[in-house]
């Protein structure tokens, strides 16, 4: 396997894929937009090619251009990561037509699974429960009629795509009528196809997914489940493996269902079968994500299997390295998605330059980062900066590790949602595993910053930190005045207020 791999992605997942390539001794080719010249994946690869202006449509979504770079650079394989072109069958076909091996399932499989109502049909034929829903391809009126027969509330979803885009809940015909055009527009913008369909909405549901691996000889195994119930607006924030919501019997049934679906579609590569679990313990097939997922890392944490390496091996035509019995889960994996989003301002995405970065380390901690000190976060792509993964022998150990690592994490120059996780790790509901997909939205707006305080002497209280900030600012200025060189450089960048003074001192 001394071949070269083109990684058709950016950010943390590009670095993640490049790492496995390097471990396998594969040469690497990165692509980057004009906005991403400074990003780590460009430096981390052996070679790097600019593929266009910042907008994704003009760079990371330019299938032909990327294929041409692969050909020019002499690559043999193309790894699409997730997002961008990862689930676009035409891109996979273009790779194959140019003699490049696409690291992912066959284009026909991607097409079948990309039509979600069709994928649900596969599950139904296998006798696996699916949520009642509408077929795809309905017009607005037919959708409203279908909702009547399903019964409200309903979930409106894009036929293709993923990542929470184009998903809306509707509790009444009025809400649904308003939601349809917006969902169509989002889906069109994100995936280039405006088809939507309906599903019954399950209150208090948990999101469980099963990782699959399949090779070209038809072997399909699972690497256990993940739970991704900590979401905000259908965007996953915290993922874990295994799930607390499953007992051993239910776990085995879900795993088996996932493998049967994988076998039925002849799945090749790494993929994920998503299920909803209702409060009564009934699970329903949702969809198959025919790609590497952001949260594959928690499965790696508990199984020890490098899923990206397996993808590359499978793409190279090798048999699976494992049979089902060799896959053993140990302990607990947790992942927090570190996003450039401000939880205190409605989770608005933030841009800016990363002026200081210290990522956590030490026992049980893994950081998959797509940034480095000095890079500028631009508004062109998603807000995922890095993923923080903690492993522990038990869920409790993983949580305290995660809390310790979150305390170590320092990013300055750009606002992130790290504080949000500090609060969540202290939340008794999270500690107790008592949450569903509405947890963050229910909990955080009321909890705010205060929940992030660590108990007792370990964590510095807000007031002590303000005192420390005040003294640092004053002492640096003081030293500058006294001609001490220690503070120089920093202080000169400040702009002193100088506009007001205190009349009553030392009160």
């Amino acid at each position, binding site marked *: 396997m001394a071949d070269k791999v083109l990684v058709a992605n950016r950010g943390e997942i590009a670095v993640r894929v490049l790492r496995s390539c390097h471990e396998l001794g594969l040469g690497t080719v990165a692509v980057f937009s004009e906005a991403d010249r400074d990003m780590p994946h460009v430096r981390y690869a052996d070679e790097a090619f600019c593929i266009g202006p910042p907008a994704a449509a003009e760079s990371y979504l330019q299938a032909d251009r990327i294929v041409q770079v692969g050909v020019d650079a002499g690559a043999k394989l193309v790894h699409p990561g997730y997002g961008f072109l990862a689930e676009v069958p035409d891109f996979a076909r273009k790779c194959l037509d140019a003699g490049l091996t696409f690291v992912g399932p066959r284009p026909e499989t991607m097409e079948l699974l990309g039509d979600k109502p069709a994928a649900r049909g596969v599950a139904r034929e296998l006798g696996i429960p699916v949520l009642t829903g509408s077929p795809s391809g309905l017009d607005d009126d037919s959708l409203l009629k279908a909702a009547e027969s399903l019964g409200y509330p309903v979930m409106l979803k894009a036929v293709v795509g993923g990542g929470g885009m184009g998903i809306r809940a509707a509790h009444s015909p009025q809400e649904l009528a308003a939601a349809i055009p917006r969902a169509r527009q989002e889906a069109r913008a994100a995936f280039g196809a405006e088809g939507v369909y309906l599903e019954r909405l399950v209150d208090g549901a948990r999101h469980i997914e099963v990782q699959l691996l399949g090779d070209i000889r038809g072997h399909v195994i699972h690497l256990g489940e993940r739970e991704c119930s900590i979401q905000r607006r259908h965007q996953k924030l915290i993922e874990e493996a295994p799930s607390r919501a499953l007992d051993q019997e239910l776990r085995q049934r879900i795993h088996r269902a996932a493998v049967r679906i994988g076998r039925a579609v002849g799945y090749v590569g790494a993929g994920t079968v998503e299920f909803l679990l209702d409060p009564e313990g009934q699970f329903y097939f949702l969809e198959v994500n025919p790609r590497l997922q952001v949260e594959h890392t928690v499965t790696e944490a508990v199984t020890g299997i490098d899923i990206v390496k397996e993808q590359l091996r499978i793409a190279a035509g090798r048999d699976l390295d494992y049979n089902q019995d060799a896959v053993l889960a140990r302990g607990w994996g947790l992942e927090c998605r570190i996003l450039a989003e401000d939880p205190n301002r409605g989770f608005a995405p933030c841009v800016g330059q990363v*002026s*200081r970065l210290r990522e956590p380390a030490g026992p049980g901690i893994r950081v998959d980062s797509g940034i480095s*000190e000095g890079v500028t976060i631009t508004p062109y792509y998603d807000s995922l900066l890095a993923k923080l993964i903690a492993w522990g022998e038990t869920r409790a150990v993983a949580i305290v590790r995660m809390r310790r690592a979150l*305390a*170590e*994490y*320092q*990013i*300055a*120059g750009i*606002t992130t949602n*790290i*504080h949000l996780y500090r609060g969540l790790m202290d939340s008794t509901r999270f500690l107790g595993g008592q949450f569903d997909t509405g947890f963050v939205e229910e909990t955080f707006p009321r909890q705010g910053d205060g929940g992030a305080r660590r108990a007792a002497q370990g*964590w*510095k209280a807000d*007031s*002590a*930190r*303000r*005192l*420390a*900030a*005040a*003294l*640092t*600012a*004053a*002492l*640096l*200025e*003081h030293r*500058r*005045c*006294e*001609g001490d060189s*220690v*503070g120089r450089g*920093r*202080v*000169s*960048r*400040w*702009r*002193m*207020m*100088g*506009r*007001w*003074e*205190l*009349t*009553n*001192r*030392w*009160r």
Partner: protein
Amino acid sequence: MKYTAIVDGEIFQIEFGPGSRAWVNGQPYEVDLTKVGGQYSLLLDHLSYEVHVASADEDGCYVTVGGRPHHAMLQRGHRGRDSHDGGVKAGHGAKRRPGPLTSDIEMRAPLPGLLVKMEVAQGTPVEEQDVVAVLESMKMNLELRAPRGGIVSDVRVAPGTQVGQDEVVAIISPNGASSRDG
């Protein structure tokens, strides 16, 4: 030398003594601050803090303590300029002193509070450091002083009015060239 720092709206009055001694709001502290790489290590009565001083905006700077950002504003705490001040002027005088005022300055409330006094009216000439208004906030009276000399071209708030953070209370225009009518 005394300093006043406002961090996230909390006011700290700070004085540095000999050695590593400092007083904050009259309380003594041992302070040991050192720069390491791009950040600072602060030992405050032996409590250890990692501090990063991030880029400033118009209204102050961001001081990140233990990974949490705080907004800090700072000024020297004495009303006039005392004998120590030679060194300071070179530092931030750069922004304040150069030549005559050439554009309007908006005097803004640094904190929400009650405007207690307005010392000027439209057309009043002011020198640098003249008191323009007094704000009551967090149980303290805050004097707002002119950052440069000029003419008060607009008074936006009357005494007894509640003002919000960053609200403009008055505008100072270049001397003899009032650029607005109010």
